[in-house]
């Protein structure tokens, strides 16, 4: 049994009956209506608990939770630059370890959390993240992925999906919108051979909370990639954010899985996947896509799903999916 599996063997998981009451991230912040990012962050911290120190990269969550002179944080929280949340939390963790070792500070099993958006994680913060994962600090990194730079007004990032409209990937005669495929950051994190990597979605809140908690329980670095629907940036109604997030899972656009001690494990099987068109048509950022482009996206999603099934050792699922793939 690996170190992570060992640490998790007594973890029973949350259910609707035993949800923690504490709210390290309090209500009264200034997030947009229907923001799934703040919801995900709230759920993750609820699961991790209040014995926590949080480092925040620059981004939406930093802005909306701390408008002067108020703060929505009930736990120690530090806002750092755009690129170095993982580096700063490394310092906090290392200092805490040294201080407790020397007996200058009481050991309280503090959880160290760093979070950033997709830009602060997949683009400018990737170097700091990779460094922290490699050094093996005992911390949790939450990537709150809303698939573009929403804080500066919807510019593309490397986590923006193919075909999406943003202000710096405008669709038109010569452009399809975002021209590259989404960067697979969870796989990059997993390639560091860290004890725990997971993807989560606010459409499955208990699953999200379980994963956040597991990330905090394992010794060493843990990475959780959370898919955060953004009504403002994705151009959909603010009442359907959760529906969009659920559809992303149902269409295999954003599959949920865990990598524990290097073992890939599917969190949700998807025997009857929906066509990606149903996910795309909910959002106006994709409305310029032609059927040919949608078919291309479907193909890519199928390919990635099959790769994932193979990695997770779901050979039976893989075979079944091969039979229905053509119908999508």
């Amino acid at each position, binding site marked *: 049994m690996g170190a992570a599996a060992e640490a998790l063997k007594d973890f029973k998981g949350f259910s609707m009956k035993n949800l923690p009451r504490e709210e390290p991230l309090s209500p009264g912040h200034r997030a947009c209506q229907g923001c799934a990012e703040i919801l995900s962050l709230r759920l993750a911290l609820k699961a991790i608990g209040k014995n926590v120190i949080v480092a925040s990269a620059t981004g939406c969550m930093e802005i909306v939770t701390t408008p002067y002179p108020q703060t929505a944080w009930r736990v120690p929280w530090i806002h750092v*630059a*755009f690129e170095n949340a993982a580096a700063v939390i490394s310092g906090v963790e290392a200092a805490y370890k040294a201080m407790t070792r020397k007996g200058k500070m009481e050991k309280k099993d503090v959880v160290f959390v760093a979070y950033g958006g997709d830009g602060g994680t997949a683009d400018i913060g990737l170097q700091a993240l990779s460094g922290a994962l490699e050094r093996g600090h005992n911390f949790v990194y939450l990537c709150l992925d809303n698939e573009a730079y929403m804080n500066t007004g919807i510019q593309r990032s490397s986590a923006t999906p193919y075909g999406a409209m943003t202000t*710096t990937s405008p669709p038109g005669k010569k452009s399809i919108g975002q021209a590259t495929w989404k960067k697979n950051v969870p796989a990059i994190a997993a390639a560091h051979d860290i004890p725990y990597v997971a993807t989560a979605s606010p459409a499955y809140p208990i699953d999200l909370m379980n994963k956040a908690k597991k990330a905090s329980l394992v010794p060493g670095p843990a990475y959780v990639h959370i898919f955060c629907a953004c009504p403002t940036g994705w151009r959909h109604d603010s009442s359907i954010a959760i529906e969009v997030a659920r559809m992303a899972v149902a269409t295999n656009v954003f599959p949920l899985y865990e990598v524990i001690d290097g073992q890939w494990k599917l969190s949700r099987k998807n025997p009857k996947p929906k066509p990606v068109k149903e996910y795309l048509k909910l959002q106006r950022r994709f409305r310029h896509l032609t059927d040919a482009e949608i078919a291309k996206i479907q193909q890519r999603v199928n390919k990635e799903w099959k790769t994932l099934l193979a990695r997770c050792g779901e050979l039976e699922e893989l075979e079944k999916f091969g039979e229905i793939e053509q119908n999508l």
Partner: protein
Amino acid sequence: MEDAVRSGKPVLLQGNEAMVEGALAAGCRFFAGYPITPATEISEAMSVKLPAVGGTFIQMEDEIASLGAVIGASLAGAKAMTATSGPGFSLMQENIGFACVAEVPCVIVNVMRGGPSTGLPTRPSQGDVMQARWGTHGEHPVIVLSVSTTWECFDVTVKAFNLSEKYRTPVIILSDEVVAHTREKVQLPHPQEIEVIDRIKPNMPPEWYIPYEDNARGVPPMGVFGDGYRYHVTGLIHDVRGFPTERPDEIQAFLNRLHRKIYQNYFDIVFIEEEFTEDAELLVISYGSVARSAKRAVREARKRGVKAGMVKLITLWPFPRQFLEPYLRKVRAVLVPEMNFGQVAREVKRINQGMTRVEKLNRIDGQLITPSEILTRLLKM
């Protein structure tokens, strides 16, 4: 909007948009950027307009990469630019030094916001004047221009490209949040009326080409990657052939030339604007958005019988010493209003050498200095 430059009609433009028009008019065909308030509109407009003229827009993963891509594009022969604000400008510093030493023409726009660090993303500031001069390490020459109106955003961007091509050097444009987001009516000139300068390319046979050989201008002709002229590009101090050297005589000669190419062309690089300066007894020296308040204040002061005049600095570095010294000799006092603790005022004091009295008027609270603040101060002086 699409044909703003060509139509010849007055158009309503934001400072950031005017910069894009200026860059395109100057022949900019490559832009690499990264989103940052308040410079994002430059990236956004470039992402639409550059592909339409056959250019390339790339959004990079951070500002270090942005300037890296710009340097690469320029070496490949394109006129290239990037735009950012305070935190991004800090990240670019290492590459600015590289562009200085490798003599790569490029234009870097810094739309100044309140600092340090994340600072005041949506508020203006002029806190980066000294960083623009000395931000990258080591003794290096640099050209820094500033803008105060939408028209200047256009005009100065064209000038910036011309200077950078002419002298093979990075040129920094300092804008600020107010200039960047103010919408004004401007009439852009016909493309044929715009003076566009391109870098000098080598015309000797490729085997005769010595890439960093000194000449009267101090600016060697620049080969483009792939056109047969071999040359070595490095951030190390190099000899005339571009290869790293540690010979004192070569190091000295190289750094002398690097500085000489800027300072011997001082009068071609330095731009200022004067108003009511002939008989001025009080002089306001200002730049950027504060220059607009200063202009109004000086006009009001004149109406009240105070002999005030103003000099607006467009070129900040090299510092317009030779233009300012004659005024310092004859005026009773000088006022330098700026949105920092006195970065240009300190420079004015340095060149003043006791000739006249230099006063500062500073605001660092994220608010613009108003005309009435300057006027009140002028009336007291």
